[in-house]
């Protein structure tokens, strides 16, 4: 065996990728946006670390403001552990839900989001005690402004008027009962629900404006449905450039509801575990998934802003 001299060589060390803080998929160093979920990646690592600290401070502040201890809420268990991660299949993408407990905490630390969730909780109790749909609707309409509903007061007035009030009265029972009940609805009832939503949007309101009311009246089933979430779940509308951008209309109601409720059913166990350990408000599994959807489809972009709130 006669071998020639060997060349000295130093070979390439492959680049190390980072994780997108939104979808937890790998991104190249220096990327401005995640190729998988579209989230902006401008926030630097130190800024994120600072944001995490500020979020903790916000949570502490909320804890001090609101004398409500998570473990004292009904249904809470000291043994429950929030899942570190779970997988959800959405029509537009597989979704790897990471750090759900922290994301729910970040969201509920926003004043408007906290009051909205408390309002939904109170309306749930009112429903159990027999309060009529139209009375709960009257309370839900202004509460929907807490999360930037764009329906102005004349529209709310019209929604409480005779004809559209009847639309709400017919629509709400169709979406009550949770995700499994929705998925079991006969086609004619689903189409009827879609038509009621279209009627409520007839004056130029968009899907999100109706959904922000429905999510108070039937939080066990209906998501908030901002455009970012609709895009994230269904891919049927473009990813918005601004949070208040509205392109999703009543025609997106059924695809969004179907995909969302299937996802809730799919992830029921981890969602229940998250709800059991969430402090400050009582959440339904559907609400937990909806808030996580908001976080991963849009909220992550606001991390620096979130950090400024406290």
């Amino acid at each position, binding site marked *: 065996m006669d071998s020639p001299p060997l060349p000295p060589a130093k070979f390439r*060390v492959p680049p190390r990728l980072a994780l997108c803080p939104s979808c937890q998929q790998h991104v190249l160093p220096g990327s401005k946006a995640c190729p998988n979920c579209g989230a902006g990646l401008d926030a630097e690592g130190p800024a994120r670390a600072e944001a995490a600290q500020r979020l903790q401070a916000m949570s502490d502040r909320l804890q001090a403001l609101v004398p409500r201890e998570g473990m004292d809420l009904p249904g809470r268990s000291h043994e429950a552990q929030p899942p570190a991660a779970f997988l959800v299949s959405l029509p537009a993408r597989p979704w790897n839900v990471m750090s759900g407990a922290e994301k729910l905490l970040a969201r509920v630390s926003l004043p408007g989001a906290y009051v909205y969730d408390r309002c939904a909780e109170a309306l749930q109790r009112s429903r159990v005690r027999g309060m009529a749909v139209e009375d709960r609707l009257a309370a839900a309409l202004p509460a929907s402004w807490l999360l930037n509903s764009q329906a102005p007061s004349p529209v709310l007035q019209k929604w409480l008027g005779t004809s559209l009030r009847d639309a709400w009265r017919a629509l709400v029972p169709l979406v009550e009962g949770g995700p499994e009940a929705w998925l079991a609805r006969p086609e004619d009832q689903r189409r009827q629900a879609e038509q009621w939503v279209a009627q409520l949007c007839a004056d130029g309101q968009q899907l999100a404006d109706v959904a922000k009311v429905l999510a108070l009246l039937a939080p066990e089933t209906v998501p908030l449905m901002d455009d970012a979430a609709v895009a994230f779940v269904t891919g049927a509308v473009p990813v918005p450039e601004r949070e208040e951008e509205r392109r999703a209309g009543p025609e997106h109601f059924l695809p969004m509801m179907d995909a969302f409720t299937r996802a809730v059913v799919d992830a029921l166990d981890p969602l229940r575990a998250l709800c059991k350990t969430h402090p400050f408000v009582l959440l339904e599994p559907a609400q937990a998934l909806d808030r996580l959807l908001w976080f991963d489809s849009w909220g992550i972009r606001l991390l620096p802003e979130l950090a400024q709130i406290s």
Partner: protein
Amino acid sequence: MAESASTQKIPPRHVEGDDFQECRPVYAVWEITLKCDLKCHHCGSRAGKARPRELTTEECLDVIRQLARLGTREVTIIGGEAYLRQDWAVLIKAIRDAGMDCTMTTGGRNLTEERVRVAAQAGLQGVSVSLDGLEVVHDDIRGVKGSFTAAMTALERCRAAGMVVSVNTQIHRKSMPQLPELMERIIEAGARNWQIQLSVAMGRAVDNPEVLLQPYHLKELMPMLARLYTSGIERGLVMQPGNNIGYFGPYERLWRGGESGEAHWTGCNAGQHTIGLEADGTIKGCPSLPTNDYAGGNIRDLTLEHIWKSTPQLSFTRDRTVNDLWGHCRTCYYADVCRAGCSWTTHVLFGKPGNNPYCHYRVLELAKKGLRERVVKVADAPGTPFDYGRFELVEEKIDAPVPEGEVIVLPAAVA
């Protein structure tokens, strides 16, 4: 008995900065004989009879010394069937005496108690038994009735002998729907690792292309694997995706992320950290690569170090850049890191590496555009070990009718 591979803090195959810079062959896969007691329909090497001039014991012992000098940390002996070579225990002992870990991949058909005892005594630390489906499918694809039962018995024997027992499974159209139930059997058998990989269009698999998955099947396969991975972890079984399971996408961090979650696929390992040896002394960058295209030389003619460091057939992945890629891989967001995934999988389809349709990220990106890809065989393989045919890549609308035989019905629980 020495500390087993799986209980060491750093697994021998783990690659660190120096390994990259020095290009150490930390992991060697060595076909010590092509003699085999199975007739697998997907066998890339068309194993059965021994090669005409397999290395002698003395030559093998010299190879072991050379591997140790090059920095190899683990040697997996394969075949054919490694245990059909008379001196296999001598080689195991020599590998261990040289300071390297020794493991074996086997079909297990004739892995008798005596053979297990001898191997354990020689220092064999781990055994990975091939299971390619439940009994009927496995026996059919392995070409021998009773081979599933024999494989399960081999697993039990190795476990009883104190070895780390693992299972490796090829994913094809027949085994894919059975993976959830197969995992149950694997857990019951006490296996700790489960390596999975896609069946590849090489050797007898080209003669039976109807067993191969289509690229678009990854859209259903990968979420199922992710669920199985999570479920397996909770029950003490670690699923290990092989080099042709990937790349990036939503589950990369799950199975390649490590403790931090940030680790990821870094490109084809062939000739970078993996070396493949054939029973007649032919050296390749990966044991699976087609011999005609990737043989860097023979250790009867050159030293292992020379072949490893100086032949283009082994250094092709070290020098590969984005400019060597083509098709969708050329313009992919991850191109510079991924470099088109597994070279073997692609080369045997299209006659050259650099454009890999079996990629989950790619499947998802195409789906966003309403598209999917299929491979269609256009030429047979000639019928020699590690041969391949030729396939064409077809891009079509995602809702185009699925050809008969390509529909895979998953169990309701995982669909």
